[in-house]
């Protein structure tokens, strides 16, 4: 096969398994074990993307998750289209189909690159400055067009068919990072006997060892040591090794989020295997061995394809058998680049020059390069490059001191390697709220004080050398696990000086030269300087103004250089400039992984009553009420909701209706102090409520506003059956528990939720008693024995029942409570018995109309958290003689009895055919224009079939004093005239409740 940049031998990829793949429609060959980036480089493809703002051609600069440029999309099928993947992390599989992003119509010829020519006009803050006015144009014009031109990839258009799993896990020691320090930490921690989890983002564990060539550990080549170490760790029952697993977030109290990618690397994944698993790992101790990230050099034209980080080039060579070029210029301020130059030289790549910023580079790596005859140029800066879609020359200038450079020399090349040194990856440490300190010697921030049970080890805390990373990792693992173990690692490797350079390089190219600091966000030194000139001093402001270090990059390659540039302009030392916050996620996390199984049917629990299936079989239409499914109406034939509800309403009032009220919250209040507790909680007086009697209870918050209501039955002297609204059940129980546990723990009373113990069948209508008569045992249904607002215990068709005589419709009504498992059978028995009596099933919509016809409120519909009992006409329920109840003191505030408070009233539209909108406003006079003086709002509005006209309930300022007044409801078709009427529209005498 013809891959011009592939070496003849070497690398960890599988040369026996060729793989074909496509990029932007063209097919290439690579090997199993390649990344998309390594395979493209092997094929001489340098151009992998266009930059975000200027659409400049960009190649890959890194070899791992720090890659800012080569963002690609991978498509398996129409539904499986993953944008914004780093080509450096995309593992090759047979048939992989990928494409570049942020270019149109093609990567090589991109219309948007006119932005590059126009770049003098797109400075930092351009978006903020230019697109501010007119305000309306932002939503309609600017934002859509900016997004179309600038967007990073696009979304798939079909639902994601893949499976994602979440799981919780616990361990004594979590090690983040599988490089030398992390492996050593795991070896030590495992000896503590506790559970150890090691997570690493790469395909293979080993970190920097995966691209090492000449190091030995304990006398073995590092490759062999790695293989033996991994085998011994894998054999330990208390160790879990996770690869392709990125620790993306450090959450409070040692909870670490890790995404494990399980199938993205497979050509034909098993559909049952999750694509990703999100681990929520709670660790007693965490060892961060996150390594370091190589720093680019900031020089003019430093973003041309073919320019890459020196250690990344070494990784491509040693791990993937790919040469970054054939004739390479190395630009550096750090010894590490010499290691890359030496390896490339050995692989037959011509090193055209090593331009070292330092005047006197020394040390074993430099000496080795000298010995190999590599052309080292001390005190030399790279000051430019040329080339279209790939670099063809480098411009090298001698440094004259004080930021000055001498005459430049042009050096032909097809790749430039750069290194400013290594930046410790303190992202997770910083997320954990650990404090960083500036190290003036290493010119970097290092972890200082931990905020969690955590310790950093190895390169992420500045211990860069292999020997010290191993020792540091082992010590950290031992300390984390409490294992009293020690071990030394005999390492032979060439080590360099850990110090590097930060900030912009000197050059003679003028103010318009583009020296990029943040490749991903297209931020140059010029942008940073402009931001400072315009008055931004805080690094947090500069970050937002210029966008440096934002988005998925999160400052991996850019952070320190940006600080260096800003510090330089501000004439401040870096520690005084400060540091921006490292945000999670470390690298992007898919929505699928975050959602896990919580999608579709499993997004939320769907609560169904014991009678739900019967309603479904009858064709009921359901509505969501909190998590419950409730039957909303039972359409017959082609009926719509309006028609069904009118029929259901009339049937209830003419014959009888049956309604599933099982979702009502129920609380059993039991104990000798039950009545006293009820007295303190509810506004009503309970002491005199007899056993076997019911009362409508109103519950206020301490601020005096109604929060719940419901019928309460007294089962025994020391036992109340309390009902709550459907949605309010958990809240009411929590409120009661709060008072009971924390204010009145001396009361001998206890609360038990019985919501789901009981199925509740409401039977409402003049025929209700007749239907029940043949079904009950041990209950006298006569009005004398069981009057309105009373209850009896007995049996219905042999099933024990609590039978309440209550009505939420104004009709003769019963509510049959039976244990849930019997709910459906009893319902069906009642249903059968009701057939001769015109029994009709009805849903929540009809229930709402029936109660509105009677002026009964629904808490949360008529009330909005600012209504007192008096506001909604419930003064009669308040036990005025009681010394105290929750909310009583607040109700005594003068503001609570102001005459202009909004009060519940009925409204009739002048035209009975017009049904007001719920939520519509009320005004006193017609013809107002905004801003109008609003005096109220409609809370409930229906067409009442029995009345043959519309009805509405409303909260109107001083409403009860306005009975008979004409008011107006402004609407899009004009002011609708209404008249204020009493709240009870139907059967105002209340005769029907007695059958």
């Amino acid at each position, binding site marked *: 096969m013809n891959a011009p940049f592939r070496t003849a031998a070497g690398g960890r990829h599988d040369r026996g398994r060729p793989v074909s793949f496509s990029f932007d429609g063209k097919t290439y060959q690579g090997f199993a074990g390649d990344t998309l980036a390594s395979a493209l480089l092997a094929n001489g493809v340098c151009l992998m993307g266009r930059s975000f703002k200027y659409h400049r051609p960009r190649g890959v600069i890194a070899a791992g998750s720090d890659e800012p440029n080569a963002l690609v999309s991978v498509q398996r099928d129409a539904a499986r289209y993953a944008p914004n993947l780093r080509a450096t992390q995309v593992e090759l599989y047979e048939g992989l189909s990928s494409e570049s992003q942020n270019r149109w119509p093609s990567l090589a010829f991109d219309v948007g690159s006119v932005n590059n020519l126009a770049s003098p006009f797109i400075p930092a803050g351009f978006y903020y400055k230019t697109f501010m006015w007119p305000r309306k144009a932002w939503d309609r014009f600017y934002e859509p067009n900016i997004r179309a031109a600038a967007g990073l990839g696009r979304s798939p258009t079909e639902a994601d068919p893949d499976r994602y799993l979440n799981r919780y896990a616990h361990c004594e020691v979590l090690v983040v990072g599988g490089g030398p320090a992390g492996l050593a930490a795991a070896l030590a921690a495992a000896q503590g006997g506790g559970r150890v989890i090691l997570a690493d983002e790469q395909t293979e564990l080993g970190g920097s060892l995966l691209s090492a060539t000449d190091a030995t550990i304990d006398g073995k080549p590092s490759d062999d040591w790695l293989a033996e170490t991994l085998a011994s760790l894998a054999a330990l029952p208390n160790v879990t090794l996770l690869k392709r697993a990125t620790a993306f977030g450090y959450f409070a109290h040692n909870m670490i989020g890790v995404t494990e990618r399980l199938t993205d690397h497979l050509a034909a994944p098993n559909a049952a295997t999750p694509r990703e698993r999100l681990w929520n790992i*709670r660790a007693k101790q965490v060892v961060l061995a996150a390594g370091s990230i190589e720093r680019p050099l900031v020089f003019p034209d430093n973003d041309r394809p073919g320019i890459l980080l020196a250690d990344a080039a070494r990784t491509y060579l040693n791990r993937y058998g790919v040469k970054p070029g054939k004739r390479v210029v190395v630009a550096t301020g750090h010894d590490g680049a010499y290691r890359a130059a030496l390896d490339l030289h050995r692989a037959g790549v011509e090193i055209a020059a090593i331009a070292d910023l330092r005047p006197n580079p020394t040390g074993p790596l430099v000496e080795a390069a000298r010995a190999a005859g590599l052309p080292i140029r001390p005190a030399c800066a790279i000051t430019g490059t040329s080339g279209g879609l790939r670099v063809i020359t480098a411009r090298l200038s001698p440094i004259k001191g004080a930021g000055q450079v001498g005459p430049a020399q042009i050096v032909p090349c097809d790749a430039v390697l750069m290194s400013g040194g290594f930046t410790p990856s303190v992202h997770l440490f910083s997320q954990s709220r650990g404090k960083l300190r500036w190290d003036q010697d290493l010119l970097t921030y290092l972890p200082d004080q931990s905020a969690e049970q955590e310790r950093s080890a190895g390169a992420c805390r500045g211990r860069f050398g292999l020997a010290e990373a191993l020792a540091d990792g082992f010590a950290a693992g031992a300390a984390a696990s409490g294992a009293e173990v020690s071990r030394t690692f005999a390492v032979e490797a060439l080590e360099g000086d850990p110090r590097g350079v930060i900030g912009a390089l000197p050059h003679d190219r003028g103010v318009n030269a583009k020296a990029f600091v943040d490749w991903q966000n297209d931020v140059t030194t010029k942008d940073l300087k402009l931001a400072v000139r315009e008055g931004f001093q805080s690094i947090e402001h500069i970050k937002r103004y210029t966008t440096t270090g934002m988005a998925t990059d999160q400052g991996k390659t850019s952070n320190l250089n940006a600080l260096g540039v800003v510090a330089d302009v501000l004439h401040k030392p870096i520690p005084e400039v400060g540091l921006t916050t490292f945000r999670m996620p470390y690298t992007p996390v898919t929505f699928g992984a975050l959602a896990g199984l919580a999608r579709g049917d499993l997004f939320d629990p769907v609560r169904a009553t014991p009678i739900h299936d019967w309603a479904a079989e009858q064709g009921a239409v359901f509505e969501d009420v909190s998590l419950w499914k409730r039957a909303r109406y039972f359409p017959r034939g082609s009926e719509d909701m309006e028609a069904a509800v009118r029929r259901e309403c009339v049937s209830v009032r003419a014959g009888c209706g049956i309604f599933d009220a099982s979702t009502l919250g129920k609380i059993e209040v039991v104990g000798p102090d039950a009545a006293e507790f009820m007295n303190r909680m509810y506004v009503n007086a309970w002491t005199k409520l007899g056993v076997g009697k019911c009362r409508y209870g109103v519950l206020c918050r301490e601020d005096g506003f109604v929060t719940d209501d419901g019928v309460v039955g007294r089962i025994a002297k020391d036992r109340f059956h309390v009902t709550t609204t459907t949605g309010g059940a958990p809240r009411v129980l929590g409120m009661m528990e709060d008072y009971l546990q924390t204010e009145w723990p001396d009361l001998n009373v206890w609360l038990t939720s019985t919501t789901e113990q009981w199925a509740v069948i409401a039977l409402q209508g003049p025929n209700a008693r007749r239907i029940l008569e043949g079904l009950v045992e041990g209950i006298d249904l006569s009005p004398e024995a069981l009057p309105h607002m009373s209850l009896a215990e007995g049996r219905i068709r042999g099933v024990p029942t609590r039978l309440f005589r209550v009505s939420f419709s104004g009709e003769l009504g019963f509510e049959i409570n039976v244990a849930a498992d019997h709910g459906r059978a009893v319902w069906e028995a009642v249903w059968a018995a009701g057939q001769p009596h015109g029994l009709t099933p009805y849903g929540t919509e009809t229930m709402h109309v029936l109660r509105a016809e009677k002026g009964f409120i629904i808490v949360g519909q008529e009330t909005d958290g600012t209504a007192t009992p008096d506001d909604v006409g419930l003064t009669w329920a308040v036990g005025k003689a009681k010394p105290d109840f929750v909310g009583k003191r607040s109700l005594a505030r003068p503001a609570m009895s102001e005459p202009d408070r909004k009060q519940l009233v009925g409204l009739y539209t002048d035209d009975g055919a017009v049904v007001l909108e719920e939520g519509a406003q009320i005004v006193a006079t017609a013809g107002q224009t905004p801003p109008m003086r609003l005096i109220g709002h409609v809370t409930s509005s229906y067409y009442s079939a029995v009345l043959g006209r519309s009805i509405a309930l409303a909260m109107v300022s001083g409403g009860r004093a306005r009975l008979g007044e004409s008011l107006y409801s402004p609407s899009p078709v004009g002011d609708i005239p209404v008249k204020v009427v009493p709240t009870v529209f139907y059967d105002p005498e209340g005769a029907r409740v007695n059958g």
Partner: protein
Amino acid sequence: MDKTLAPNAARGALDGFTAAPALGLAAACPMTRFVLRGRAEALAAAEAELGFLLPRQACRAASLDGRHALWLGPDEWLILAPLADGPALGEALEAAMGAHPHSLVEISQRQTAIVISGPRATGLLNVGCPLDLDLAAFPVGMCTRTVFAKAEIGLWRRAPDSFHIEVWRSFSPYVWRFLEAAGAEYA
């Protein structure tokens, strides 16, 4: 017309859910349940009637002859008993506790139970449950209310690889399906 419903007319919340042996997932049989609260004298009387001590150690269960008392809170126990014990057990406990301050509420059908057993049990539970289910952290005999995904459950370890899950009736299909979905790759 027969005044009494057929004995098989009762329908549990998990009727129609088929056990999934590959996942070790099964519905428990119906049983009698009470929540017991009360002051010391009442608890002593209940213990005398039950014939065993209510566990006073947090998050532990005690059992005798098919009856179990699960610690739910410092003065709250879930009593589980065979279905046949039914109302008689409640009446006996009420009689024993008499006027001593207490609350005994039957909740037999408020909740239902799922049993998950086998080598995958802890792994499947940890898809939705945030607790450490290692035997050292959650030993046999431990019981507690906790959460499973978006539902509250009672979790009781009855053997190293077997858990009894108490879950409110209307949440039980959700918990069952979630466990099934969590183990889809093994089914």
